[in-house]
């Protein structure tokens, strides 16, 4: 097929269709409108269904209804819209419904702005819905990886019968890059044991529900869900480790931030600065194991387009063996390479002084 110049939002839609997603329910919100627009155009050509919902809440509940069939279903939104979807995501997790939610992060809080941001790290990894639940979150850094992770998200959702989120920001959604759309083959997962289809020849009714009124039954359900989450933590961590073998200062960055960081690391390496990067690809589960082999690390810098959210996970990952601080810009602004490089050099000199 070869490479094609595509926009991030279109890559999301095209990759979902490639993964066999025939159902999309969404609501307009900037900067992700090109995703529902793409689906409205393309899905009917593939015998699929696009519905423009009356609200974000309705969209995620349409997902809940359609996902009850066991078919692949997706919705997308941006920050305040994802906030509205959190109730439905909790219900999907409780009822164990596989589905994919694409979150295109913009600057907040509240209505905030429509420019790029990574201030939804906590929203994505902690969730805002009620109850004990988790949602795997994937954060690609380029459009090729976006295409792969959208497909992967559907597989992980099916595998664990759980919602999965793909978190990008306004920059990745709006930018264009050459992408080769390649269908990834995963093991087939059969949902016939639980999916709602109309009873037909079955003896027992299939019921999708998250209600357990008896304490012991709900406790058992909570333990079952937690067992799945443990499995996800053990098996689904993803990270890229870049130039960390001898790195004295390790930058931790995902998505758009990691692209800028990579250039800065290359620039500083040319000057002999021992700097590397851990790039979390799964944000939940957070790739703690990537931090286990940093023999020379004296300082960790969590670089995010937020006031510092992922930094809490980086502190946990550090096991307090080295200092961890945050660096970033917010409000829709991005840091430049020289801003980041001067921050890294300042921290390096602190480390040197302490030595």
């Amino acid at each position: 097929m070869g490479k094609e110049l595509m926009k991030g939002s279109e890559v999301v839609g095209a990759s979902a269709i490639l993964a066999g997603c025939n159902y999309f329910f969404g609501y307009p919100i900037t900067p992700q409108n090109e995703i529902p627009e793409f689906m409205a155009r393309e899905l009917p050509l593939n015998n699929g269904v696009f519905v423009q919902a009356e609200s974000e809440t309705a969209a995620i509940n349409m997902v809940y209804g359609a996902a009850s069939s066991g078919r692949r279903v997706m919705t997308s939104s941006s920050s305040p819209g994802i906030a509205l979807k959190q109730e439905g995501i909790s219900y999907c997790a409780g009822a164990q419904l596989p589905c994919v939610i694409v979150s295109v992060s913009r600057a907040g809080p509240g209505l905030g702005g429509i420019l790029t941001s990574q201030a939804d790290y906590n929203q994505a990894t902690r969730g805002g819905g009620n109850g004990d639940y988790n949602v795997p979150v994937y954060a690609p850094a380029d459009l090729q990886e976006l295409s792969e992770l959208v497909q992967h998200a559907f597989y992980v959702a099916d595998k664990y019968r759980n919602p999965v989120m793909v978190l990008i920001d306004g920059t990745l959604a709006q930018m264009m890059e050459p992408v080769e759309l390649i269908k990834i083959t995963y093991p087939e997962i059969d949902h016939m044991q639980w999916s709602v289809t109309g009873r037909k020849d079955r003896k027992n009714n299939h019921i999708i529900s998250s209600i357990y009124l008896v304490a012991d039954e709900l406790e058992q359900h909570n333990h079952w869900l937690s067992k799945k989450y443990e499995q996800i933590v053990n098996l689904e961590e993803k990270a890229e480790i870049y130039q960390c073998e001898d790195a004295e200062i390790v930058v931790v960055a995902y998505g758009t931030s990691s692209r800028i960081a990579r250039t800065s690391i290359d620039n500083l390496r040319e000057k002999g600065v021992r700097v590397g990067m851990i790039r979390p690809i799964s944000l939940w589960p957070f790739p703690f194991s990537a931090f286990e082999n940093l023999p020379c690390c004296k300082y960790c810098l969590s670089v995010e387009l937020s006031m510092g959210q992922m930094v809490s996970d980086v502190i946990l990952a550090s096991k307090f063996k080295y200092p961890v601080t945050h660096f970033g810009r917010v409000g829709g602004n991005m840091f430049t390479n020289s801003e980041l490089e001067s921050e890294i050099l300042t921290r390096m000199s602190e480390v040197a002084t302490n030595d």
Partner: protein
Amino acid sequence: MTDFLFQKTNGLTDKQTHYCPGCTHGIIHRLVAEVLEDLNVVEETIAIASVGCSVLSYEYFNTDSIQASHGRAPAVATGIKRVFPNQIVFTYQGDGDLASIGLAEIIAAAGRGENITVIFVNNAIYGMTGGQMAPTSLVGQKTSTSPLGRNPLLAGMPLKMCEIMSQIPSVEYVSRVSTHSPLAIRQAKVAIKKAFENQRANRGFSFVEILSSCNIGWGLPPVEALKWIESRMISYYPLGVYKDGKDLE
């Protein structure tokens, strides 16, 4: 061979319901289930349970079911119906669920003309949570959150859902029926049947409001509660067919 004069419909499971003695939810469940059996669609039906007294209705309908979050049943129904356009999908919702927290979803599903059936049980109160004022509570009606009686200056007049729904162009059928007498119950079944037949014939969105008693929430003995439907509710919520056929250009 035994000839049965009456038999429990196969549209219901054998599960004993949790409804209070005197409540008419049980009658409405039976009517819906009988219609599904009459139309021979029990095995191709997907029921959407809502939040409220009927939250556990998925245990009573002998069909595949999805339990929806509060007010969102029409959105959930939209999702599954769009996947299985040939299956029968219905929501079963109370007045708090449909006429308060779920107003956007019911109006929007009607606006799209979704080919689903909506069973709207109006008992003028929040039963499950202990008798709070509903959007359909009558003027002067005492509830736990309108202890002096519903004051229209503070809470407005009760919402008339059939009248609202019948103004929506893509809606096919709107009817209000009651459960206060054997005759009313037979008439209710006719409306419910029509609403499901419409869906089977792909005619579109059909809405049946059923006036129902909540003797516990109203603080009345069951027989008095049925009389209260007849004497108080029907004058504000007149029975009848409000719409039969879409307004299409």
